Structures are given as C-alpha cells and as structure tokens.
C-alpha cells in the first residue's frame, strides 16, 4: 500500500515529498531515498484527531502523513496493536460516557466521597494532630474571647454529669465552662472533642435539670462524631481543584469563591446531621426533645426574630431555627 508523506532526513529542516510503500514481507520502502527497512523498525505514533501522523524511521528520519485512515488500515492489515485512545476519542458515544464518568465523579466527590475521604484521612491522622490544632484554636480563643466561668459549683456538677453520661466517659471529650460576652449564648466543639459551653447560654436555660443544655451538648458532640470540620476542609479543597480545572486557572482559588460557595451550602447539611445526632442521643437517654426545642424557641423570641420570610430559607446557609424547632418537637410527641 502506498502512503503519501513528507520526509525529514534528520539532518536538516528540508521537506521532501515522498511515497512510502508498505509491501509484503513487512518491509517498508521509500524508493526516492533508498530506504528499505523492516516494518518493526519504524515507530508509528498513535493517532490524535486528524493531526498528521508521525512515522519514526531509524537514523532520525521522520515522516509525516495526513493519510491517517490508510495508516490505520495498514496497522490493521499487518496486525499491529494500536492505541485504543483514539477509538474512544473519535466516538461521540464513548466521549459521552467520559462526560458521564466525569460528572458522576465530581458529584460523588462533593457529596459522599468527601465523607469517605474525611473518614480515611481521619483514620490515618494521628489523634494528637487534631488535638494540637484544636489546642491552638482554643488558646487563640482564650486570649480575649473566653473568660473563667461564673456558674455555681452545683450547676456545673449537674452539667458535667449530663456530659459524662452523654460521652460515656470517653476521654477525648472534655467540657469547658467559659464566660464570654463577645461570643454570647453559644456552644462549640473542636475536632479534638473539646466542647466549650458559655455561661450566657446556660443562663437562658429554663429547665432546672438543664436537659435543654444537654441537647445542645449532644448536638455539638454530633459535629465531632461526624467529623464536620475535616469534611468541610476536604470539600472546600476539592471544589477548589474542580473549579481550577474547569476554568484552567488556579488563581481563582485565591479569590475565596470556593470557600463562600461551600460554606453556604454545606454548613446547613452539617447542622441537620448534628441535630439528628442530638435526637438519637436524647432518645437513648430517655430525655424528651421538647427541652431543646423550648430553648430554641425562647432564644428566637428573645431576639425578636422574623421567621415569616420563606424566600430567605432557600438561600440561607443553615436550616432556619423555626424549622429546627419543628424538627425537635416532632420527636417530642412520639
């Protein structure tokens, strides 16, 4: 079979129009240049779109041919293996498959994939790393945000008992009582299992036995158990990589756009998960969820919240308090 090509002799940039003759006996001849070599001695590059095919001959001689189809036929006739990649690339059907694989992968990595990755990373991370990060954060907060508690010994004992029962005495969980006017009524968990509870939140409790605060503590423990901070970090990093790949420009990461995107959509999911954890724990301890619902309600009233707007709900970064109150109440009725 004859194939038209341009030949470079490997010494200069001169181009020579030649005809390559693929003959029986697996010999390849170019009469005009006295070339007669075995087919196995030339290397035929894999096809790539319709770009000129490169055929490398011994001694730096190189030919380029636009007759891609003919060369494919020769490879087939002489039973030479060829790269399958072009076969995939040239088919719209298989390319569509590639699109699907990509989309499925991206969606998976941003949903449950992030959880698996978080669990995996958490399992290989030495616990003392989490502890160190948490300790550094806590130290930062202690400096200017948190002050020693003013709760009475008796109240603290009740709360500590609740906490111990909740955590079954697991050593990683430590409850810190602090006062903070700047942070206000709040409780938060660090990945190490340190949970900080402010006096201001305790002050809002209407239950003598602090069963509402117990609900809050269970919620915070849910954040730790579900490794929310790690998952958030992984999702943020992943979405950054994806956006960088999509736009072909990593510099977008510096704009903080991925962080904003991720924060608004995922923290909502995490809050729901932590709430569900709280419900589960409260049930186990045989405590009604009505207490935490009441605490939420009185907080809402105290701050004169306007919960009528439903348009905001869709855009909000977390479930509305009203929705969460309903959620807790629905379990209280059971």
């Amino acid at each position, binding site marked *: 079979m004859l194939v038209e090509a341009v030949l470079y002799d490997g010494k200069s940039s001169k181009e020579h129009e030649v005809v390559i003759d693929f003959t029986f006996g697996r010999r390849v001849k170019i009469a005009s240049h006295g070339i007669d070599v075995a087919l196995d001695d030339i290397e035929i590059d894999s096809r790539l779109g319709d770009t000129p095919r490169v055929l490398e001959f011994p001694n730096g001689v190189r030919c380029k041919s636009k007759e891609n189809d003919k060369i494919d036929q020769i490879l087939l006739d002489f039973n030479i293996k060829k790269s399958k990649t072009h076969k995939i690339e040239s088919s719209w059907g298989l390319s569509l498959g590639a699109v699907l694989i990509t989309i499925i992968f991206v969606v998976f990595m941003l949903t449950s994939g992030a959880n698996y990755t978080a669990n995996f990373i958490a399992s290989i991370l030495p616990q003392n790393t989490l502890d160190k990060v948490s300790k550094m954060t806590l130290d930062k907060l202690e400096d200017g945000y948190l002050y020693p508690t003013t709760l009475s010994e008796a109240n603290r004992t009740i709360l500590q008992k609740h906490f111990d029962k909740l955590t079954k005495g697991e050593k990683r969980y430590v409850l810190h009582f602090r006062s903070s006017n700047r942070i206000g009524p709040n409780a938060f968990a660090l990945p190490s299992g340190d949970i900080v509870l402010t006096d201001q939140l305790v002050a809002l409790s209407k239950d003598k036995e602090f069963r509402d605060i117990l609900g809050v503590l269970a919620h*915070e423990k849910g954040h730790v158990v579900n490794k929310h901070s790690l998952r958030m970090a992984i999702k943020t990093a992943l979405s950054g990589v994806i956006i960088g790949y999509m736009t072909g420009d990593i510099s977008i990461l510096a704009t*903080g756009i991925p962080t904003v995107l991720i924060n608004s959509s995922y923290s909502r999911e995490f809050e729901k998960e932590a709430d569900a954890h709280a419900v589960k724990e409260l049930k186990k301890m045989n405590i009604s969820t009505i207490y935490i619902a009441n605490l939420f309600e009185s907080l809402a009233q105290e701050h004169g919240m306007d919960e009528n707007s439903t348009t905001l709900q869709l855009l909000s970064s977390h479930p509305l308090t009203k929705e969460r109150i309903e959620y807790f109440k629905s379990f209280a009725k059971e």
Partner: protein
Amino acid sequence: MEHKSENRPTQYHTFSFKGSGSEYFRIWIVNIALTILTLGIYSAWAKVRTNRYIYANTYINGSNFEYNADPIKILIGRIVVVGIYATFVVFSQYLMMYEVAGVIAFIAFLLMPWLVRQAVSFKLRNTSYRNIPFKYRGKIGDFYIFFILHALLNIVTLFLAFPYSYVKFKKLIISNSEYGQGKFSFDGTTGEGYSTYILVFVWTTIFIIGIFMFIGLILVVLGSIFGGDGISETAQMASVLTDINSTIPLDANISYDNNMTYSNEYSKEELGLIGMVGTMFAFLVYLPIIFWQKGLSDGYFSNFVRNFSRLEDAPLKGSMSPFKLGVISATNIIMIIFSLGMLYPWAKIRYLRYKLENTHFRCSDYEQFESLGYEKGSTVGEEMVDFFDIDMGI
C-alpha cells in the same frame, strides 16, 4: 517546497491553528475520564496528548509543530513533585513538625532557579518543527544570579523594578533559546518594558473605574424605581461580603457552631442571602473583569515579546488587539461558567487561535536549519512548574 526564495523580498507568514473544538473536546473529556479511572496516573499521558494535539495543529508556512515529551518521564516527574509536596504538607499540617517542613521548603526554595531552568529546557527540547528540535542553552549560574539579584532589587524598590526584571528574564529565556543551529535573540529595552506595564496599568484602571461607575448608575436607577435605598443596601452587602471572607480564619478550626449563636441570628439570615448575591456577583462581574484584565495584559505582553524577538535575522511580529483578547478572555469565562466547564475546550482553542493568527514570522529560508539531535533530561522542573501553575509565559 524545493524552490529557493532568497532573492524575493520575504514576507511575513502568519501562524494558524487547524484543530477544532469538537475534536479537542473529545480528547479533553476522555483525558479527564481516564485520569479519574486510573487514579491520576493517566494524567501524564493526558498532558502529552493535549500538547501533541495543540502543537500538531499549529502551523506556519505549511508545516506543523510537534510535541515529543515521553509520558513515562512526565509521570516520574509528577510523582517526585507530588511526593515532595505531600511530605511537606504532612510535616507542616498534620505532624506539626515545622522544623522538618521548614527544611523541605528551604531546600525547594534553594532549588527554585534550577527547577525553573529545567522547565524551560524541557519545554523547548520537546518541541520541534520540521523535525528540528528547539533547545535551551541558558546556564544554571545565570539563573541563580538572576533570581538573587532581582529578588533583592524588587524588595529594595518595592517592586518598582519589576518591569525591568521582566525584560531581563525574557532576555535570559529567549536569547538562550535555539532552533537547530539558529539562535533566538530578544532585544526589548527596559524603557519599552515600562511603557508596556504602564499601558496595561492605565487601561485596567480606567476600565475598572468605568465598570464601577456603570454599576453605580444601574443601582441609582434601580433605587429610584423601587423607591428604596438600593445603594446603601448594596453597599452594605458589599461590606458584609468582604466580612465573610475576612472572618473565616477565626472559625476555620471550630466545628460548626453557627446555629448556636442566636444573638445575631437575623443577620445570619441576611448573610445567607448576601452570600448568594455575592457569589453571583463574583461569578458574573468579578471573574469576567479579572479575565478581561488577564487577556488585556497577555495581549500587550505577547505583542511586546514577539516584536522584539528574532531567530537569527528572521523577526517575529505580534499584531494582537489587547482589548479584543480581553473580550475573548472575559466571554470565555462566562461560557465556561454557564456550561459548568463543558465549553472549556472551545474557549481554549478560541483564545489560542486568536493569538496564533496574530503572530507572524518572516524567514527567507525555512530549509536552512540543521538538526543537532533530540536531547533527553529531567522532567522534575517542568512538573513543578506545572503543579504550582507557575506561568513563565514562554
């Protein structure tokens, strides 16, 4: 092709790109899918196929370019770079052994000039035209001298010397590049470097001021229509938007306690809304502005570099309109956003084609070049530059 053209007045030939978006799309998406399925290993082959496709479709005077890198070598380079980076991250972020991480970072820092030279050399020696490879002859010592001198210079002058450094860097790269026995040279002057920087700066400033005046005008109109205080609200949004970003460091390590804070619950509802508006604002206004500016400066600098580069006595010429390149860049990013990335191949080719079709070369004899053979060498520098997305603009 055999005729000599020495006695004719030589004309500029223009580069062209013969690839198509639909063909490139399939190569691109198959590359991504195979990279996913092979857990990243295929990425080296993907890089080679992408570059081969782009080079092979780039033509001048009827002949195309070639990309000859070996994927196995790229893979090794990638593994080395990722391995070192991962070690650094493990030591700095997880084990908190800052001394070890510091030593790794310091060694990488010391190797930087050498790695940059390696990357330049890799790109050139794996590019060929008419079976003649390009080559890089720059000395490692010159790179160290360049980086040390210019780092100090820019610290002392608070980066006012940057255009000067840019011109010197281009000279270091281009004047040490070769094609066969032919040598490239770059003779852009510092003065021209400064005027290019000033042009880019002035147009960017004027454009951004214009955009904000335009947005302001729209808000005034909206404000008067709805009778509310649209401007102050938007100003408020803008101020909170920056606030969201700046407060992240404090909350970053705390497990999500947002909803336990009730004292500012209402404002958090607003924050959600503002976050969405802000995100949309960012995507539809901020990103196109950034990309317009990138295109604009790319246009100016590409013209500058081309207009002062020669291969022996054969000059290159750039005739891009920086504004048009800016518009292409900005509309590309909008295309990419609305297609969730799927139009990326078309966008890339559109941008590349415009640049190539405005690049010209005047050579009296394309057949005069002699091959000095293909060379081999390390890929680590190239992969480092690739991994950290350092743009050297060669």
